[in-house]
Structure formats: C-alpha cells, structure tokens
C-alpha cells in the first residue's frame, strides 16, 4: 500500500527535484491523491475534465488497487498501470500523468500528451507541383497516423522500441506483413535491440547504427519526409523506421537508384518521367566529372581538345597565378563555403548575401585574375548539377573532389581508373542482403522498367525483384 507523503518525496527525488514537475494534490473521497506531470507535456484540458474531475466526483469508488480507476477515469486516452515506481516515472517523462492514491496499491499513468509540435506541412526539400504535400513532423504519433491513414489494413504493422539510455527515444518499425521480407524485419529489430547509446537525437543516428559500413561514403539507408513516398516504399516491400523527434523516416533495404526518384515521378506521364530521370543522371554526371575532367585536360591531355576550345581556355586562364588544380579547388571551396553560409545565415540577410556571394564575388574573382571565367562556369554548373539528386549531394561532392585530385595527378587515365574502382566498390555493397546497385549490377531486367526509364504503372505488375520478396505481385489484371 502506498503512503502518499513518503511516496511524494521519493518521486521528487527520482525526478531530481526538477522545476518543471507539477503536483496536484486532491481529496478523492476519504483518501488523498496525487496527480503529477511535467509542465508543458500534457493536454491540460483532458487531464482536468477526464481525470481530475471524475476522481474528485467518484473518489469513494476507489478500492484497494489502482486498477479500479479504469471505471472512473473519463478519457479515451491510454490508461496504464504499474507496480513499480520506475516504470511509471518513465511514462511521466514522455508526457504521461501519474496518479498515486494514499493507501491504494499500484501506480496509474494517463497518456494524455499535449506538447506543442510543428504542424503538418510540405517538407522544404521535397516540393512538388503535383501530388500530396503532407510531410512528416517531429511527433511520431502524428507520423504513425499519416501512415495509418494510407493503409487502413490489418497488414500494416507497427512495432515499438525504446532506444537511448538517457533520451529513451521512441522508435517504431513499420512494415506490411504480407509484403515485406520478414528476415529483414527481424535483422532490423535485432539491431535496434542491441543499440546501447546514451541518446538518439535524430533518425540519422539510428540510420548510422543500422548500417554495416560506418565509414562508407555511400549511405545505406533510405529516407523520406513524405508519407506518400513512404507508402510507395512500404508497398514495394521496404521496412520503415520512425524515430520520435525526427521528421525523416528511414527505409530499408536501400538501393542507390532510389535517390534518383522523385515523388512526382509516379504522378507524371511515364515518358516525361523518363526524360527527367535522364536529365538528373546527366546533371549528376556533369557535377561529378566536369571539374576533374577540366583539370585533367588542362594538366595532361590538352591534345584531346580542339584548337578553338584550347585557345579559348588558354585565353581564359592566361594570367591566372594558380595551377589548374589549385584554381579549381579554390572555386569549389568557395562554392561549398557559400552554400554552407547561405543555409545558416539569417533569412533577412540571405537574399542579399546570395547576390553578393554568388554574383559579385565570382565576377570580382574573375576580374581580379584570381579565377578564370571557365573555372567559375564549370564550378557553378557542377554545383547546380549536384542538386539534381539532393539526397546524394554529400556523396557526389566528395567524389568530384577526389576526381579533381586524381585528374590533376593522373589525368583522364586516373579518372577512368578511379571510376572503375568506385563502381567496383558500389556494386559490392549490399543493404540487408540486397545488392546496392541493382538493377544494373546484378542485372535485374524486370526492375529496369522503373530505373532510369519509367514504364507505365500498368506495365509494372511486380514489385522490385531485387528485394527478394515472396509476394511479388502488385498489379493483377481482371479476367
């Protein structure tokens, strides 16, 4: 049986006498009761009307165990019962309201969370012209609801995990049980259970802990901030990992080709989508190869250039005090710094600084003879091309730097060899048993219909074969 006064002292000590702890002492019938919560974490109205008021009104009905509250509390929020203080306080720390009654055994927690969170809005990096505009938020409950609305089916499964010794972050694993590869689900769950870290701040923490190659340049988890994209991935047999506090939902297994897709690809006409995907590929190609090749041609293989272009380059670079590689590195670093600064600077300065940085700096650098106009042009083209695939900007920008160094030292030969080595690395990667570079290597002919080219949805009756799913059929034709 609980002695309330002593219990209050123990609870306060367990919560480190934190100043955001709110105590409400009540008289419930002949007994004394305590309702305890963290300020700002609960829905005050629900607690007042659904918990406190019924407790006061019907307190005489409370018996020896706190479970009798089930018939008294008038709220549809979850009501949980615990025999130990520690488990109950864990719930309080995530937004629950603790109910302790003098002389009554057990602890009750009502999960009427009411903390403020960002409203559902379009994600900033996934703007679309056509298609849904909802985006995930930092609240995992909202995110679960957004997914559940798209699959009112008992096949949609959510499994909860708590990760982080101090942060106690709520992580949900979500999949369609009649579609996903259950071996992959088990592997993910097993890895989540093994995570022993002090805190999880964002889903990227979980992503890195679920990856096999920690230092790989290439990411091994997919991610999205859009429920419609996640729905497509779930239908394709992937497993989603929702992390409380992060609007980015992870998906596994991951194929590199996924980042070449856009949500609108599935809402546009297939031919238009094919053209756009080819443009993206070209954008990435230019972004990665252009700076390195330019340096390689200038440094080693100028004989490959026609005379007219060679004269243009010579005229452009005459008087520049730096070697081609130094010049290119200066330009690339300048653009990288500009990019970082534009993301972090205050919004009201952003436009002005972008003009200053992008136009004036570049023009001044050329006029001052520090950089050649061709170098600035190529760097600008390359930097813009990187954003054809926003999710791979980090990876491709490092690769283009590698190519600049290789092009300077070994010319086009070095770039070719580097490309071969990088391609070998990429084709050898696997994400939970799925080849990373499928459907190109290994060649999976049926998956090529939705790779760079995009066939009509009607001609894509099967799911992604590379994932090794048992339930392969997506589209059936009526007889």
């Amino acid at each position, binding site marked *: 049986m609980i002695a309330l006064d002593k219990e209050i002292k123990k609870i306060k000590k367990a919560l480190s006498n934190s100043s955001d702890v709110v105590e409400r002492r009540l008289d419930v019938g002949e007994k004394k009761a305590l309702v305890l919560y963290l300020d700002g974490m609960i829905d005050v109205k629900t607690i007042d009307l659904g918990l406190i008021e019924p407790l006061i009104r019907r307190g005489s009905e409370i018996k020896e165990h706190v479970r009798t509250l089930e018939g008294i509390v008038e709220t549809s929020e979850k009501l949980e019962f615990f025999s130990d203080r520690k488990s109950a306080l864990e719930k309080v720390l995530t937004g629950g309201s603790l109910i302790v009654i003098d002389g009554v055994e057990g602890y009750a927690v009502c999960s009427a969370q009411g903390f403020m969170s960002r409203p559902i809005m379009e994600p900033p990096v996934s703007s679309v012209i056509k298609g849904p505009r909802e985006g995930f938020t930092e609240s995992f409950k909202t995110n679960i609801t957004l997914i559940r609305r798209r699959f009112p089916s008992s096949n949609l499964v959510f499994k909860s995990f708590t990760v982080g010794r101090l942060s106690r972050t709520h992580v949900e694993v979500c999949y369609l049980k009649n579609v996903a590869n259950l071996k992959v689900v088990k592997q993910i769950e097993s890895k989540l259970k093994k995570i022993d870290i002090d805190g999880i701040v964002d889903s990227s923490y979980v992503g890195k802990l679920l990856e096999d190659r920690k230092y790989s340049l290439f990411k091994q988890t997919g991610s999205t901030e859009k429920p419609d994209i996640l729905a497509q991935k779930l239908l394709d047999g992937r497993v989603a990992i929702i992390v409380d506090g992060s609007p980015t939902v992870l998906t596994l297994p991951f194929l590199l080709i996924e980042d070449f897709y856009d949500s609108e690809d599935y809402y546009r006409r297939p031919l238009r989508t094919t053209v756009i995907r080819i443009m993206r590929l070209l954008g990435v190609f230019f972004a990665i190869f252009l700076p390195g090749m330019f340096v390689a041609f200038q440094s080693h293989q100028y004989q490959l*250039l026609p005379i007219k272009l060679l004269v243009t380059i010579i005229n452009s670079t005459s008087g520049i005090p730096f070697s081609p590689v130094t010049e290119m590195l200066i330009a690339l670093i300048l653009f990288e710094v500009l990019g970082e600064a534009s993301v972090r600077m205050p919004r009201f300065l952003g436009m002005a600084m972008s003009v200053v940085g992008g136009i004036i700096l570049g023009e001044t650098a050329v006029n001052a003879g520090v950089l050649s106009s061709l170098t600035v042009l190529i760097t600008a083209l390359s930097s813009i091309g990187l954003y054809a695939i926003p999710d791979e900007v980090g990876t491709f920008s490092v690769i283009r730097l590698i190519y600049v160094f290789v092009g300077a030292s070994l010319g086009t030969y070095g770039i070719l*060899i580097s490309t071969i080595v990088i391609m070998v690395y990429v084709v050898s990667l696997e994400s939970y048993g799925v080849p990373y570079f499928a459907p190109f290597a*290994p060649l999976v002919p049926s998956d090529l219909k939705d790779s760079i080219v995009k066939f009509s949805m009607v001609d894509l009756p099967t799911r992604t074969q590379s994932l090794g799913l048992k339930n392969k059929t997506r589209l059936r034709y009526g007889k």
Partner: protein
Amino acid sequence: MENSYITKRQYGLIIFFIPFVFKFSVLPSILSEKAARDIWLVMLLIMLTELAQLIFIVKVDKMGGLDAIKERYGKITYYLLSAPVLAVMILKASVYTSETTSYANSYLFYNITTQGVGIIVILASSYIAVKGAKGLGRIVELALWLVPIAIIIGALFGKLKLTPDYALPIGANGLGPIAISFDSALFWVLDFSPLLFLKIREDVTLSPRKRTRFPWVPVAAISSAILMVGLYLAYVMNYGGAGHLVDTAFSSLGAFNVVNTEIGSIDWPAITLWLSIAIVSLSLKLFASSKVISSNNVPFPVAVLLTALVIIVISQLAFYNLEKAFDFATSFVRYVVLGIELLVPMTAYVLLDIKERKHQKEHHPLEATI
C-alpha cells in the same frame, strides 16, 4: 558463403568479354606479320581452340571447379594441378600488364612514367580481386552496358572503311603462314583457366522458370567467337595486308575509336571499354591466383597483395617495355603455357568425372548403368 560463386549469366558474360581484351592490342600486328590478310582465319583457329578448352572448363566448374579436386582427391593433387595454372596466370598477368601500360601510355599519356601507369592498373585489379567473385561478376554485368554505348557511338561517328576485296582470296598464301601465325600467338590463346576457380550458383533475382532457360554459356562463347573473327575480318578489310605496320591498330579504326564532336576528338569509346575490361580480366587472373595461395591458410586479401606484388615486380623488371614482354611471350615459354592451359582442365575433368561415376555407381546403381 565463400566468395567464389557467380551466377550463370555473369559466368557467360566473363566468357564473352575475356577474349576481347588482349587479342586486340599487340596481337593483330603479330599475326599480320606472317598471315597478312588471313589473320581472321588464324583468329578462327584460335577461337576454336579456346572453345575446346572452355568445354572442359565448364564441365569442371559444373562439378565444383578445382576446389572439388581438393575435396575429393586432397591437397596434393590440387596443388599439382593448380600450381602450374598459378604460374601461367602470373606470367600472363605480367605480360598483359605490360601491354595495358603500353596501350594506356600511347593513347593517354605522353609525359608520365610507365611504372606509375602499370602499378595503378595492378592496384585497381587487386581491389576488384579482393571483392571476390561477387564483385567480379557484378562489375562484368556493369561493363555490359558499355558495349551498346560503344556501338552507338561507333555507328554514329565511325569512320570505318571496309573494302571486302582486301580479304580475298581467302587463304591465298596457304596453310603455312596461318600455322606460323597461330604458333606465334600461342601465349595469347586459352585465357579461360581462371574460370576453374569459380563456381556457378542460381540467380535468385530471376524467377525459377527463367533461371535455367537461357543458355548463357554457349551463347556467350559462340557469339564471342563469331564477333572476334568478324572484327578481325573488319581489320583486314580496312588495312589489307598492311596491318602489322599500324601500332595498336584496332584502336585507330574510326568505328571503334574516334568521336568527333563539337568539343573535340575523344578516344573514349575504345579506351574506356578496353581498359575497363582489361582491368577486369587482370583482376580475374589475380583472383584465381590468390585462391591458390589462400588455400594455404593465407588470408585472401594478403594473397591478393602478394600476387599483385609479384606481378608488379615481374612486369616492371622483366617486361619493362612492350618488346621485352613480346619477346618473352613468343619464346618457347608459349608452348609450356599452352600445354598447361590445355592439360590442366582436361585432367581435372577426367579426375572429377571418375569420382562422379563412382558416386553414381555407389548411390544410384540403376542410373549409373543407363
């Protein structure tokens, strides 16, 4: 799972690509010296010989490759067969590295040492070899995409000028020059020995119905042979009997090489394709050689490194220029190499077949008699 397994399709693609590499660099001019316009007949003879070797190798691989020899006959028999193959692969890799270096230098580099070029090729090949059969198989599938690109660029911008009269009359000089040419090219014949160290598995990305339907291996082997003979015929129709005067002749043919565009002449189609597949071919030899060394409880990456070091040393010290490599390859060593390349697969096949028949008799006596 041990990293020696590839799918049937990848196996077929390796068979398709292997002949296209080192038979296109110095070999055309070597053959042209003696056989002149009949080099395509020499190539026909070469491809028939290679198909004969391939038949034994495929049969051995279906029974488990040379690893099956180790399992069924023990390590001594395995080493008796694999050691000569190891020596041959290392020698061939050293000569081919020298050829690759010369080719890359003549097209891409005028102002860099050949040592650097050669070492980089071996290092890149070593990296692929370390990735094992899985990496090799997948990179070969990726290389397949380069073929239509090269063909399209060649078709759009090619400057091939074929004069069928150059190839006539067929066999005008008799069998003698053809035989002499074939004899001088023996070192470059029979490159399929590394396949003895690969095993074939089912392609799980295909449905069971599709997995066994397409005959990848015979299609790849025969189409490779036809293409090789066809390309040599095209060579003759372009150069006639003067092919031996043109260094790296194939790469100079407009259809395969030069892309004239608004931004300049780019030798990319031939060089990209050739160098990529040359590196894959070298890495296959490195992989196979390392498999033999690693069977002595040496970690596989260490075995690859050791093999690479040996090849670098031999190619840099013994074959530091193309003439040295060429002299070695056309010396008596070519007969030893040919002998090993022919006898080892045949011997392995016979040994494994004996065990298979014995196994059939013991466990399935009825089927064994049918």
